Structure formats: C-alpha cells, structure tokens
C-alpha cells in the first residue's frame, strides 16, 4: 500500500484516495507520486461546481427535459408487471409531491436464513398476508329482529389462509361492543347494547367485516419470488414497522416504497436515501439517463428540514423567504395578502424577484459584488 502525504488527505475525497492506494504500484518514486497527486487534485478542483452556478435550475432542467419523454412511455408500462405498479411520470410526481397516500404501496421483504434459501417460503408469505373476517366469510347479513350479524364461514378459504376457529373467537373476544358465538359454520355476532338502530347495526357490520384475523396489517397481497439466488417476498401494501419486527425477516435489506413510512420508522436520513432510490429506479426503468446528483439535490431540499416536504406550494415553496417568489408560484393572492397582513419585507435576495424587477440576478455573472466602499471626500 502506498502512503499518501498528509496534505493530500484533505484535498481529495476518501474514495479517490482509496482508489489511488489500490491502483498505484508499491514501489512508486516519491517524485512520481507527488506528480500524480498534484494532477489528481487539479482535476478534482476543476470538476467542482463553480460559485454562482444555478445548480437547482440545472437539476430541474435535467429532470424535467427527459420527463417530457416519460409521459408518452408511461402507458406502455401499465399492466405489464404481475402486480399493477405505478411507474413513470405519475410515480415521479407522487414522490416529488411528497404524498402521504401513495397509489401502490409495496414492500420487498428479504428473509433471514434459512428462509431466504426458500424454506417454508409459501408458509411465511401466508403468515405475512393480512386476513380479515370478510376474506373467510361466504356470507354476511344483518338480522334485524335479533339486532345481530350472522356470518357464514367459508371453511375452504379458512384452510387456505390458515385460520382456525380459535383465531376468529380470539379476534372477536377482544371487542367490547359485541359478543360472538360460533356454532359450526355459523358465526353470530350480537351487539351488547340492546336496541341498536338499523343504521348503527349497518355500521357495526362494516366494522366486523374488516376485523383483523392474522398476518401483518396493511399487507393485502404477497408474492414470493426468487431474486439473485435468494427468495424474497414482494407485497402489495406496506407496513415497515410490523414487518421489521418479524423474526424471520432480514431487517437490513427489507425495503418499502412508502417514503413517509421509512421516515417514521428509520428516520429522515433513511427516507432521503429511499427517496433517491425510488426516483432513480423510475428514471432508470424508463431508459433515461439522468445524473443521480440532480436527484440527490432535489431530495436534499425535500428532506433538509427533518421531515419530507414535497415540491409543492405547501411544501418547499412555502419555505421561500421572498414574498414575490412565493407569489409567482401558484396562489399569488394568498401569499400577497398574508404578506400584507404581517408587513413582510422582501430582501430581493433570490433569482425570481430580481427577474420580476429586471435587476441582474444574483447567480452566474450577476453574483460578484463590490466589497470596497469608495472613501471620497
């Protein structure tokens, strides 16, 4: 291993230094090493972004321009996958808007040994899949006379989902408002309080229908697949917190596409990385070539405040310091009136305001300012 002089350690990123250490021959002369390192530092410095470069705008253009081609591609992808997954432009919009409710939440659950080798994979998948009472009922109807709900159980469905009578009685015994009685295939759920109105009874029926029996809440479908010598479970629906708690899951590799969930469970740094991955995945799947640094910059602005903020008028745009800049992006009247109420002051420090006033913008050649004040008499 080559030893590199101290002064270069701070001048170059760690990755470059590690690469140099690996690539350079051990018996390199001091002089040559010096020359190579100087060259590296010079190249590295020249690659840095210049002061005053409009990086945000360049990112916006770099993502926006290929985005126009994406709109057309989107249609071809719908319905191709086994599970219908939102990709393409709608997905990008969904992520960058920072939407809480995403249209197709999904998880890739990686498993711990020996399950990752395929052992009991079907059984585990079934355990993760959420089963509700309606999934194992062949009939649910309201008995108005007895103010009760009568359910006929579907034995074959129960067997397929691995549900026993004990599961059902246990799930229903927890409820305060009802008393359940199971005899054969007939399940009778009676409200404890007498004389319920039909309306209340109907509401009760809707509640009973979705009583959770087994599995992880929110996981509506499971699909075991093999990915690079490893069995994983792809799910429709997402519940990162509960899935990570399962003993047979590999928590280090398991991911969800719901970035808000990642933010809640693993924190904002993880959410940042998850967002970058999700955006990049879509752009890559469309066969487009966008440098990942552009996406990083956008996601950094989204997550810098410690929580995920969308690129919307409620998200990062509302954080802008300038009234004029905010007003120029959607709902101008709202922003101007609120600014008037609190007597806001616009420092004209950013680009948009200066374009409006036709002043040189503080970017590019407009950035340098005179620092010395003339001392005339």
């Amino acid at each position, binding site marked *: 291993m080559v030893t590199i002089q101290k002064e270069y350690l701070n001048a170059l990123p760690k990755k470059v230094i590690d690469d140099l250490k690996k690539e350079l021959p051990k018996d390199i002369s001091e002089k040559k090493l010096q020359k190579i390192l100087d060259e590296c530092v010079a190249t590295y410095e020249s690659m840095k972004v210049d002061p005053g470069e409009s990086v945000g705008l360049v990112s916006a253009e770099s993502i926006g321009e290929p985005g126009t081609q994406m709109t057309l591609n989107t249609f071809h992808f719908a319905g191709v996958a086994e599970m219908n997954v939102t990709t393409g432009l709608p997905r990008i919009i969904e992520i960058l808007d920072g939407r809480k409710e995403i249209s197709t939440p999904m998880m890739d659950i990686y498993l711990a040994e020996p399950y990752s080798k395929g052992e009991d994979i079907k059984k585990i998948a079934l355990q993760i899949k959420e089963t509700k009472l309606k999934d194992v009922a062949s009939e649910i109807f309201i008995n108005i006379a007895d103010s009760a709900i009568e359910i006929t159980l579907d034995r074959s469905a129960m067997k397929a989902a691995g549900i026993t009578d004990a599961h059902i009685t246990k799930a229903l015994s927890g409820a305060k408002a009802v008393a359940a009685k199971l005899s054969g295939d007939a399940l009778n759920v009676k409200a404890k309080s007498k004389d319920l109105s039909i309306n209340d009874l109907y509401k009760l029926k809707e509640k009973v229908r979705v009583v959770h029996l087994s599995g992880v809440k929110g996981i509506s479908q499971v699909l075991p697949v093999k990915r690079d010598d490893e069995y994983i479970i792809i799910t429709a629906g997402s519940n990162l917190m509960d899935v990570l708690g399962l003993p047979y899951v590999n928590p280090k590799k398991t991911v969800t596409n719901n970035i808000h969930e990642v933010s809640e469970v693993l924190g904002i740094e993880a959410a940042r990385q998850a967002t970058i991955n999700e955006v990049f995945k879509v752009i890559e799947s469309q066969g487009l070539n966008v440098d990942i640094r552009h996406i990083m910059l956008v996601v950094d602005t989204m997550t810098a405040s410690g929580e995920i903020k969308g690129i919307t008028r409620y998200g990062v745009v509302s954080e802008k310091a300038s009234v004029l800049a905010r007003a120029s992006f959607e709902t101008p009247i709202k922003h101007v*009136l609120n600014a008037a109420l609190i007597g806001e002051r616009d420092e004209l420090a950013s680009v948009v305001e200066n374009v409006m006033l036709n*002043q040189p*913008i503080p970017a*590019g050649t407009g950035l340098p300012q005179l620092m010395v004040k003339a001392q005339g008499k």
Partner: protein
Amino acid sequence: MSDVYLNGKFVGTTENALGFTEKLREERRKQAIPPSVSIYHDEESDEVQIESIKGRTLRPLIVVKNGRAVLTERHIQQLEKKEITWSDLVKQGAIEYLDASEEENAYIAFREQDITPEHTHLEVSPLAMLGLAASLVPYGNFNQSTRLNAGSKNQKQALGFYAANYPVRMDMDVNILHYPQKPIVNSIMHDVSKYEKHPVGQNIVVAIMSYKGYNMEDAIIINQGSIDRGFGRSSYFRPAIAEELRYPGGLVDEVGIPDKDVKGYKSERDYRYLEGDGIVYPEAVVDEGDVIIGKTSPPRFLSSMDEYSLTTSIRRESSVSLKHGEKGVIDFVLLTENEEGNKLIQVRVRDQRVPEIGDKFTSRHGQKGVVGLIVPQADMPFSASGIVPDIIFSPHGIPSRMTISHLIELLGGKVGALSGRYIDGTTFDAEPEERLRKDLLDMGFNENGTETLYNGLTGEQYKAKIFIGNMYYLKLKHMVANKIHSRARGPIQLLTRQPTEGRAKEGGLRLGEMEKDTFVAHGASLLLKERFDSDRSVIPICEESGNIAVRDILRNKSYCPIAGENVTINDIEMPYAFKLILDEFKSLCIYPKIELEEKY
C-alpha cells in the same frame, strides 16, 4: 319468446324471432315496408329492434341468396343500356340499405368470389369501406391506414378549383390553382365525383434522391424552370369589407376620401389609389398600409362643448387599409346594401402566389413537405433523354412511413405519361404493379423505374440509378406568405406596455418562462436583463413613503402624494409591468413600500 320493439317502444312478442325478422326483411325487399326501415335481432338479449327514425347512417349492399348475388350480370347490362336505374335495383330487392345495428346480423362478403352459402350480403365494391377523400388515394390498399388517413386529410387542404363561379363570389381566404390537371393515376372515385371538373393538383416529374442536403427533414426541391412554366402557381383572394353604419342621433359613416382635418388622418400618399367615391379602382397594385376604402365616422363622444361650438365636430378616420404584410391587386369591387339597408362595400384583393421556399406541397400519400430550395433548371439532375425532375423528394421519407402507394404511383405515372393513357389506381382494384413494370420494360425502360441521371452541376453520372417518374402533386394552402413574421420594434399593449402578441398585431416573439430559465442556468445575468427590458420604464420613487412620486414637468416640480414636496425623490428603473402590479396591490388596499439603498 322474444320482445319486439319499434323505435325503442315495446310493441309485442314473437315466438320465432329469426323467422320473424327474415319475413320482415322479405317484405321490405318487396317494397311493402320502406327501404329505410332496419330490422335487427339482438341475439344476446333476444330482442327484435325495428328502427325507422331519422339519423341512422344507412349503407347499400348487394343482397345474397343461397350463395348467389341477387344482382346479376343482366342487371349490369340493363344499367349500362340505361334501361334501369339504381333505385330500380332497390325496388327489385337486389340492393338493400342496412344501418349499423342490422349490419350485426349480416354476413357480408368482400368480393364476389368470397361468397359462401352462409353469406347474406355482398359489398357493392370493396372501395365502399372508404370515404370519398380516402378513396381518392391511388393504390391505397398498399399503405398503412395512418398514412392513408394523412393522405386524404392533405387532399382537403390542397389548392384547386373550388367553384366555377369564383370570379363573382366574395369568399373569405380563397385560393385558386392556376393550371390544375386531372391525375394520370386515378381511381373509379375520380370518375364518379367528376374530379376533372375540380382538380386540385398537377402531374409532375419526381425524382427520389437527395440534393445537397436541402431536402432533409421532408423538405422538397423544386425546379425553377417548372415554376416558370406554371407549376404550383395560385391566386389568393381576400375581400375587404366596409359598411356605412348608422349611429344614434342621425349620425352616419361616410365613404369617401377623408378631409385633411379628420382625426387620425393618414398621409396623402396612403389615399392615392382612391377614386372620387372613396373606393380603389380595380387593377390597382396595392401594398401594405394603402387605403382600399376611405371612410370617416362621427366622433365617438359628443361632449356638451362640441354641441355649442361653431366649428363642425371633427370626424374620425376609419378607413379600411391593407394590413401589415399584405399586398396584391384590386380584383373586384362590389357595392350593395346589407340587411339593415346600410351601404356595403366589398373589395376583393388578389395576390399571385408563385411557389417560394417554405410553401407546402404534398403527394396524395401523406408525404407532405416544405420547399427547401429552388434550383435553376440548369443545375437540376437530368437523364440521358433530357428529362429533368420538377421535384426532388428525399428517400428518407420512405422507409419509416412505408408508403408503398407513393412508389407505385410514381411507377404508374411514368407508364401513363409515356404511353399516353390513364392508370387505374382504385384501391383494392388497381392495375397491378407487374403490368406497369412489364409496360415499362416493353417501352425500353428499366422495369423498376430507375434511370441513370447526371449531376446538373458537374455533368458527372450519378453512381446510383435514380427512381424517377410522374406523380400527382398538390399545393397546400399553408403558404409562407401568410405566415412569415418578424419584429425588431413595433406596437405595444396599452395596459402593460409590453409588445403585442401575434402576427396580425405585428407582435413580439415571447421569451417565455422556460427560455428565461436557460439564461439563468447559463448564469448570463446581464443578457437576461437586456432581453427583458421591452417594458422598461423609469419611475420616480419617494424615499420617505416608498411610494411612486409625481414628476410635474409643466411646473418643473417633483412631489410625493403622501409625503409632500420636501422629500428626496429618486428615479428608479423597473419594468412597467412591475409598476402595474404595485398599482394593483394598492387597489387591494395593500401598501407596497419601496425602500431604496445605495448600490455601491
């Protein structure tokens, strides 16, 4: 048991729906029921629907019985001898009209040889599935349907001979092609629609090759000699209209040469073509800005002062003149009255349009293109026999669009032109390509239509054989003369002081939001500032109140409407649109203060 509905209303039931419909149809063929009545048996819901209401599209089909068409050779002979007519065939039950729903019950053979015992009908012609415009595309069955569609759409935009009485008509925006021809490669539909009475194109020689890159991206190259011989020449007609309107108080517009004291008087030069009655004389050569109809209107507002003043109230100039970019010759002057009995003057301006770079041409196969270069005949490629193409078409237009009909028409046109006959290119029923090739070979040409051409500039022989032949080309109504537009300075809007929008108003070309972003991305901040000063204005600002101050030039004084006269007032440069938004804020009871500070 099936329900029977008449025009959607339940009228009864039938035990045997099939027999019932069959019987009804027989009655219709015997003229017991009108031929426009449709009988439809919906097998899925087991209903019989009988429709006689208006608004259903019906189409004629030949009736087939027991695997044989009812229409026989004898009928055709009688038709040819004019012993019977089409409606006789309907009366005899040989032809019947079906609507869209009854068609569901029919099994229609495409050609006579396809008929099996199951068939109930036969197409009158395979061409019947196409509309009028689509069936005017020769060899249309060799194309992708999208191209056929584009080809028929293009034909609708072609210049031609739209009405024989055009010299006495006053239509808006009309074009007439000067030497229209009947296509060499035509179809049955050309005869049926009497196409030779209103043709829209010309037969010309087309070579498929490149020429110095001036025909890339679908552009075409035109021979200057062909233009001189009249190819693609057209006239553009456009009427100017003026009315003598009546106003309340007995005031009225007056057509005539305006007096010099009229408000808004142009210059004497602008009125030079007007005759004594205030209207131009026919065949005057007019240019932009020239007045065609001189007219004055009464003043817009009658103030009390004017009523008592001794001088007659000043009238306003309201002449009709040629707009920016328009020119032409006065073709026709019409004096009449409108519905209200007001005097109505219409003056038609004619402008000859010789093909120029940017005019749009097309063949009949959706192969439209714009003229990229006009080449002197001497510089055009030529063949050993001295044939020079009129148009050079780029070969890159062919592979991706797959318009085979374009190629076959070229071949067919060549055969037709050489042997002096018309080629039948009717879709599905055309003269086969093999015969065209054989004819070419018999006449001593390459059977594939290629010829050895020589470079018109150097005289060298081209290494490749060039595919050359005759085609029917159309000039489309999109001509640069109607679209060309540029501006350095010009009119501005009253409200924002920004340039007007659109060609008609001689407007500017907007540097939009996204274009602005490119300047910002380049960091070209001062260039951006320069681009955006179309509405630059200098506004005096009061430092005390931050308000817009007043500069009274008459009294040579500056003051602030809020802080008074003893304040410092500075001139600040800003876009007028920004001053406007500040004013709008004020109208919303928001007080935008401008704080000034030293720049350096």
